[in-house]
């Protein structure tokens, strides 16, 4: 064996329909090829889709949820608390993944499993209880309609174990909102791609885990030495304390200054009242503490409390940039207390803040443009900055009532009902865009458009690099940057560590080579790890093309080509369709894909001939 640590060689497979639970072993070959995390998830989903001839309804019992932390998760190094959730997404109908921080994945690994795959559908609302080797599906109809925190509390009461790590869906997940999320550690969400709805479709309300096993590490002395160096390096970074103070909220000022903040449903790239919703406002008036994911010295989680006024008493783990931007500038709101309220509601009901803020923005603009009338909005007059209407809409979405029923189906459903709304929704492949306007940077547009899950920044976030240094780069260089991001960023999701140390505090990429080698004992270099990541990107591409995605879907939101930015440093800017087309050609070529975006036939055959992981 090449690998002497990092894996338990077991994947827990739970079939909720039959009640059968089984720890299945897998061979080293897969650990070398797919590493773990999203790599395992993509492979298991691909095997399943192949079995079903690529005909699968995301909300049917046949769909799978793979919860997969990765071989480095839980080990002694900065920010090793990440877990990937992979499933066929009800929001997009294609490959979907999302990752969660906190400590759930670590606990799952300590229970002795490299991943957890959930299939089937329970007859009644249930939760899964994993206590090391003991696995139980517990019927719990009393959890129906409960919020995430209520669910957690009730399970702790019932099991009499306060140390359990619990993830749960809120009412929105039960109601199968297309962007329902899965929440753990109070405010850590696997937010995107609606995997919470898949959990809801399986009648699975929560998963509670306790694990006590040693995490296998091949060379703990090397890991200790290397990581201690890493911790010291991070702590001495000039931005370290600022990062602890504001975390991702510091991006509000940056994004506004550089003109990429979403304002008024992505119409503008600048918000004139951004100073009312930025990190300093949070620090001075709302922040009461920090919170960290497992083993992370950066502790970028903000804990906020509203101390007075209308939303007094609102306490939330958050917000982060995306949430503050989509509920603030994107809806024309300059009240930070409201952002906290919206964040708290979304967390408790279990919906993704990015999709929610994005779609509410689209609906408001649709109403303003006369596409929706009072009959469509349940009699609500929708205007920018209307906090009450937004809160009403959040509740309606989670309950799937009235207009919320339509929005809750996701952007594809919204367009089905209101075709004229299509140009106002910023989405790719059915996934609503993250809070960075792509009109000022071609790389960001290409990153969104070619991301395997849709318009999310998790795969590539090249915008800052392009705006800082790469405005005049030739298209080839821009494409290289996007592909580099799409290769290294998913690698973090395969290893089970957070990428923020790397992207925000310049933590060296080489560290992860040392860390991987120390934990697994395998001699893979960074280059080899990146090749594995690239291979997984080809696999997810094969999945999405087999499910009907082609070149026509690899375009950024329509608005990027048709409506120029209104104000700020990029005023008047929009993307040139021809230039984008050319760049997409270069992108496909560099990836070795066909002109229609298909992976090479040799690669495809390789994947199709490969054995199943489970």
């Amino acid at each position, binding site marked *: 064996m090449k690998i002497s640590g990092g894996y338990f060689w077991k994947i827990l497979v739970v079939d909720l329909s039959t009640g059968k639970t089984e720890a299945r072993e897998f061979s080293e070959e897969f650990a070398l090829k797919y590493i773990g995390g999203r790599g395992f998830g993509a492979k298991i989903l691909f095997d399943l889709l192949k079995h079903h001839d690529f005909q699968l309804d995301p909300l049917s019992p046949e769909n799978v949820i793979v919860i997969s932390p990765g071989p480095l998760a839980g*080990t002694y190094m900065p920010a090793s608390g990440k877990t990937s959730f992979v499933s066929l997404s009800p929001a997009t109908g294609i490959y979907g993944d999302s990752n969660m921080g906190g400590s759930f994945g670590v606990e799952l690994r300590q229970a002795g499993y490299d991943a957890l795959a959930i299939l089937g559908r329970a007859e009644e609302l249930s939760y899964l209880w994993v206590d090391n080797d003991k696995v139980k599906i517990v019927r719990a109809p009393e959890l129906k309609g409960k919020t995430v925190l209520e669910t957690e509390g009730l399970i702790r009461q019932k099991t009499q174990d306060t140390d359990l790590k619990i993830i749960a869906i809120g009412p929105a997940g039960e109601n199968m909102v297309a962007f329902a999320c899965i929440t753990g550690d109070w405010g850590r969400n696997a937010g995107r791609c609606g995997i919470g709805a898949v959990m809801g479709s399986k009648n699975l309300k929560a998963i509670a885990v306790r694990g006590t096993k040693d995490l296998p590490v091949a060379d703990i002395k090397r890991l200790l030495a290397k990581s201690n160096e890493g911790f010291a390096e991070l702590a001495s970074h000039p931005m370290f304390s600022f*990062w602890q103070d504001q975390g991702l909220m510091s991006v509000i000022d940056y994004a506004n200054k550089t003109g990429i903040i979403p304002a008024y449903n992505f119409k503008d790239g600048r918000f004139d009242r951004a100073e009312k919703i930025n990190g300093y406002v949070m620090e001075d008036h709302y922040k009461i503490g920090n919170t960290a994911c497992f*083993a992370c010295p950066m502790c970028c989680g903000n804990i906020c409390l509203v101390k007075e006024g209308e939303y007094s008493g609102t306490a939330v783990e958050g917000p982060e940039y995306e949430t503050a931007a989509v509920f603030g500038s994107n809806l024309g709101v300059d009240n930070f207390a409201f952002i906290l309220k919206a964040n708290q509601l979304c967390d408790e009901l279990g919906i993704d803040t990015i999709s929610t803020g994005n779609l509410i923005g689209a609906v408001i603009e649709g109403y303003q443009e006369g596409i929706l009338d009072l009959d469509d909005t349940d009699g609500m007059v929708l205007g920018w900055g209307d906090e009450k209407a937004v809160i009403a809409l959040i509740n309606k979405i989670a309950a799937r009532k009235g207009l919320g029923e339509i929005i809750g189906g996701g952007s594809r459903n919204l367009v089905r009902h209101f075709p004229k709304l299509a140009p106002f929704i910023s989405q790719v492949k059915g996934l609503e865009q993250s809070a960075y306007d792509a009109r000022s940077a071609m790389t960001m547009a290409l990153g969104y458009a070619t991301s395997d899950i849709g318009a999310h920044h998790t795969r590539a976030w090249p915008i800052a690099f392009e705006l800082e240094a790469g405005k005049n780069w030739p298209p080839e260089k821009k494409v290289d940057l996007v592909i580099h991001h799409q290769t290294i960023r998913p690698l973090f999701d395969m290893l089970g560590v957070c990428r923020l140390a790397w992207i925000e505090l310049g933590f060296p990429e080489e560290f992860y080579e040392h860390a991987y080698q120390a934990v697994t004992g395998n001699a893979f270099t960074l280059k080899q790890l990146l090749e594995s990541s690239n291979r997984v990107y080809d696999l997810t591409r094969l999945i999405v093309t087999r499910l009907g995605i082609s070149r026509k879907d690899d375009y950024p939101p329509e608005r990027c080509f048709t409506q120029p930015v209104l104000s700020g440093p990029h005023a008047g800017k929009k993307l040139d369709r021809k230039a984008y087309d050319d760049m997409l050609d270069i992108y496909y070529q560099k990836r070795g894909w066909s002109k229609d975006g298909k992976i090479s036939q040799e690669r495809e055959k390789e994947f199709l001939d490969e054995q199943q992981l489970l």
Partner: protein
Amino acid sequence: MKLTVVPERCSGCKLCELACSIKKFGVNNPKKSSVRVMVVYPAPIIRMPIFCHQCKDAKCAENCPVDCIHHENGIVRINTEECIGCEQCIVSCPFGAIFTHEDYEAPFKCDLCGGDPECAKVCPTKALIYVPKHLIGQAQRMSNVLKYAHMKQVEFFEKGEKKVLHYTEAEKKENNKEPK
């Protein structure tokens, strides 16, 4: 010297647990640690590392039926060879600072790593600190003062113009840099 905690500073990252398990048992397993971070939420969120305070009047020692817990240079130690595994010490500790794991028969607890505790060294927010005895409580006092200052502001006049200075802003000016 004394190991002490400022709970307000704790972020709940559990690096102390990891460092402890590696130092004491040579394994990467937070469940084999002699310090345990308790997290209670929602607001008011509390994160508090629980560890042995090396009590002078140690309840664990008092309640041990075979008298195998003793003070040694100010450190409370369990003699694992004499221990019968009744776990009376665990329940009698007022802090819950003695731990157990299915891999071991005897319970385990903090021994301050022989005077250089790993948990305090690794703590990124300085919530766990190892300080001379006369400084115990100082961190809490300072933390309290700063919290008070956070709510307070000073009004002053500059060239006839009324200005307000927050203590926190004065502090901020030093590292008022733009994020990347």
